[in-house]
C-alpha cells in the first residue's frame, strides 16, 4: 500500500465532522462522500453489465418464444406454478429485509442490520431450496434437456428448447443468488463487528443493490417461464 502520510493533510482538510473510521477512507479519495458516490456509481455500472449478460438470454428466449409459441406453452404446463409463485414472494420479502438493513445501516443500528440481513439470508436459502426441489422434480419427470429428455407434446423438439432456456436462465440466476447469499454472509459478519456507521456503510448499500438486482431478474423470469399457459397443472 502506498504511503498515506504524504497526502494525509489533503484528506484531513475535507473530512466531515463525523468521526471517520481509519479503515474506511481509501488513500486516493478526497473525502468519504466522494468515495461513497464513486462506489455507488461503480455498482450501478456493474449492474448494467449484468443486465446485458441476462439480456443475451432474454433475447434468445424472445426469438424462440415468438417462433414456437405452442411448444413453449405446452412446455410451460410442466412448470411448478406454485413453487415459482412462492419463490417470487420469498424474493420480494427478502428484498424488503435488505432494504430495511440498509436503512438500519444509515441510522446506525448495528443489531438491526444483522437481524434484517439474517432474515434476508434465510429467505435466500429458502429460495434456493425450493429451486433445488424443482430441479429435482424436472429430473424425475425427464424434462431436463439432454439425452434423457422425454416429452409428450405436439412439438417436443422446441419444448426441449424451452427447457434448455429455463435451466440456463434460472441456473445463472441461482448462481447469482448463491453469490448474493455469500456476500450477505460477509456483510453480516462485518456488521456484527461494528464496521459500519452512518458515515460509512457503502458495502451494505452495494450488496443491497446487488440483491435487489437479482430480485429484478427473477421478477421477469417468473412470468416468462411460469405464466405462459393459462392451464397450470400444479
Amino acid at each position, binding site marked *: *500500500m*502506498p*504511503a498515506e502520510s*504524504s*497526502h494525509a493533510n*489533503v484528506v484531513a482538510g475535507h473530512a466531515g465532522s463525523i468521526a471517520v473510521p481509519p479503515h474506511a477512507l*481509501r*488513500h*486516493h479519495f*478526497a473525502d468519504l462522500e*466522494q468515495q461513497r*458516490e*464513486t462506489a455507488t*456509481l*461503480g455498482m450501478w*455500472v*456493474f449492474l*448494467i*453489465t*449484468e*443486465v*446485458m*449478460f*441476462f*439480456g*443475451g*438470454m432474454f*433475447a*434468445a428466449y424472445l*426469438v*424462440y418464444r415468438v*417462433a*414456437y409459441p405452442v411448444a413453449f406453452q405446452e412446455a410451460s404446463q410442466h412448470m411448478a406454478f406454485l413453487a415459482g409463485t412462492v419463490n417470487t414472494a420469498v424474493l420480494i420479502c427478502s428484498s424488503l429485509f435488505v432494504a430495511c438493513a440498509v436503512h438500519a445501516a444509515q441510522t446506525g443500528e448495528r443489531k438491526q442490520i444483522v437481524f434484517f440481513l439474517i432474515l434476508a439470508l434465510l429467505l435466500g436459502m429458502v429460495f434456493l431450496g425450493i429451486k433445488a426441489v424443482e430441479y429435482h422434480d424436472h429430473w424425475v419427470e425427464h424434462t431436463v*434437456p*439432454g*439425452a434423457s429428455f422425454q416429452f409428450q407434446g405436439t412439438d417436443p*423438439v*422446441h419444448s*426441449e*428448447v424451452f427447457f*434448455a*432456456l429455463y*435451466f*440456463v436462465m434460472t441456473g*445463472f440466476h441461482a448462481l447469482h443468488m448463491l453469490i448474493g447469499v455469500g456476500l450477505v454472509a460477509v456483510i453480516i459478519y462485518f456488521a456484527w463487528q461494528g464496521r459500519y456507521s452512518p458515515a460509512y456503510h457503502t458495502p451494505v448499500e452495494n450488496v443491497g443493490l446487488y440483491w435487489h438486482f437479482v430480485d429484478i431478474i427473477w421478477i421477469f423470469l417468473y412470468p416468462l417461464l411460469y405464466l405462459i399457459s393459462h392451464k397450470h397443472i400444479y
Partner: protein
Amino acid sequence: MATSTQIVEKETYLNTDFSIKSWLLTTDHKRIALLYLISITLFFFVGGLFALLIRLELLTPAGDLVQSDTYNKLFSMHGIVMIFLFLIPSIPAVFGNFFVPMMIGARDLAFPRINLLSWYLLMIGGSLIMYSIVTGGVDTGWTFYTPFSTEYANTQVVAAGLGIFVAGFSSILTGLNFIVTIHRMRAPGMSWGRMPLFLWSMYATSVVQILGTPVLAIAVALVFLERVFRIGIFNPQLGGDPLLFQHLFWFYSHPAVYIMILPSMGVVSEVIPCFARKRVFGYAAVALSSIAIAVFGFLVWAHHMFVAGISAYSALVFSLLSYAVALPSAIKVFNWTATIYKGSIHLRTPMLYALGFIGLFTMGGMTGLFLSSLGIDVHVHDTYFVIAHFHYIMVGGAVMGFMAALHFWWPKITGKIYPEVWGKIAASTIFLGFNLTFLPQFILGYLGMPRRYHVYPADFQVLNVMSTAGASILGVGYLLPLVYLFWSLRYGRDAGNNPWNAAGLEWTTASPPPTHNFDETPVVTWEAYNYHQLPAMPEEETIGASGI
C-alpha cells in the same frame, strides 16, 4: 506548472520497492499498466508467430508446410490471441491505466484493487487460452460459429471459450474503472470540455466494453453449455437456430472493433496537436464523434451476416445503419487533417506513427464502405477483401496507434529517451511492410480467394507471395522497437519531465512519476491543448540533455 519536483533523490513509482511481491500485489495503476504492457507484448509475439506461420504456408498453393488441421488451428489461435489477449486490452489496459488518472489529476483509478483483479483475470484467461494451445489448439476460428463449435469440432473449444469468458470480465472491469474514474475523480477545474480527447475516447471505449462484453460472455457460455450438456440453443438438430449465435456474437464483436480503434483515435488526437504545436481542430466534434461511434457501433452488427441467411429487409436496415457509423470516423479524419493546417510540424517518431494511423485507417475505413454496400458485400464477404479490410483497421489502425502511444509516452513511463533515428526507421519499415502485406489481399479478395483457405488455386499465388514478403518486413519492423526500447532503458538519456513540451497534466509531474502522481492535487485553469501557452518543442539533440 512550476516543476517543483526536482528534489535530490527522486522517488518514483518504479523505485519505491523492488520486491516481486510489490509488483504482483501492487494497486498502483502505473505498475499495473506495466504488468499489462509486459503480458500483452508477450501475447502479441505469440499471435505474431502464428501469423508468420500462416503467411509461410500460403507462399505456395499446395499445403506443404503444415497439415490442414494445423493450419486451421493456426488461424484460430492467431485470431483468438490477437483479439482477446492483445488488441482488446492493448491501449486501454496499458496507456489508459497509466494515463487516465494522470490526465485528470487523480492519484489512482477509482477502484485500484479491482484494477489489479482485472489484470489477474486477463492472466487467468490468457493461461486458459495458452493451455488450450499446448493441449491441441482450437480449430473453430475466433468466431466460434455454431453448430461447428458446439457439435463438430473436437478440439479444445471449452478451454479456449472459458479463457475468453474470463478475459472478458477483465475487460469489463477495466471499462467500469475508467468510467467511474472519469466521472468521479477529476481534479478541480477539469471539466468535461477541458478533458484531453484521449479521455473522451477511453470513456467511449469503456461504454462499449461494459455494454457489449457481457453479451459475448453469455454467447460463449451458451456455446459451452450446448457443447457440454448437448442442450439445443444454437444447434438446429436440437431445435435451435445457428444464426442466433451469430447475432449474439456480433452484437459484441462488431462493437469490439471500436474497443480496438477508439483508443488509437484518442492517442492520435493527443499526438497530432503536440507535434503540430496547436490545439486540435474541432475539439467538440472529435470528442462527440467518439461517443457517436460507441453508440452507432451497436447498431450495425448484422453487416457481418448479409449472406448468412438473415432476412433481406434486415440486411437493408443494417446496411443503412452501417453507413451511419462511418460518418463519425470520417469527421475525425477531416479534423486531424485540419489540425495540421498552419501548424508547426515536427516529424518525430510518434507523429510518424500517428500519420501512419491516419493513412491506414482511412484506407481501412474506405474499404469498409464497400463492405456495407450490400451488392458488393455478397461478393467479397468471407474473402481476403475482408481480411485486408479489418487488418487495415486493427493492425494499420489499432497497432499503429499503440506504437504511437508507446513512443509518445515512453519518456514519461520510463524517464528515458529512445534513439529517434531508430524510431523513424522502425515506423517506416512497419508502414511499408504493412502495405505490402495487405494491399495485395484486397485484390485477392475481389478475385474470390476465400478466407481460412489452406490450399488455393494457383492463379492466386503471385499476390500471396507479395503478401508473405510484406509480412516478413512487417515482422522485422515490430522486432526493432523491442530492441531499441530495451536499449534505451539502460543507455537512453534522461527524459526530463516534459521532453516534447506537451500539454496535459501527465507532463507536469516527474518522469517517471512518483507513486502518488502529483505532490499536490492540481487545479486546472486552462483548456486542453494550450500549445500557444507552452514553449516550443525542444530540438531532437537537446531533449533530455538539459534535464528540463
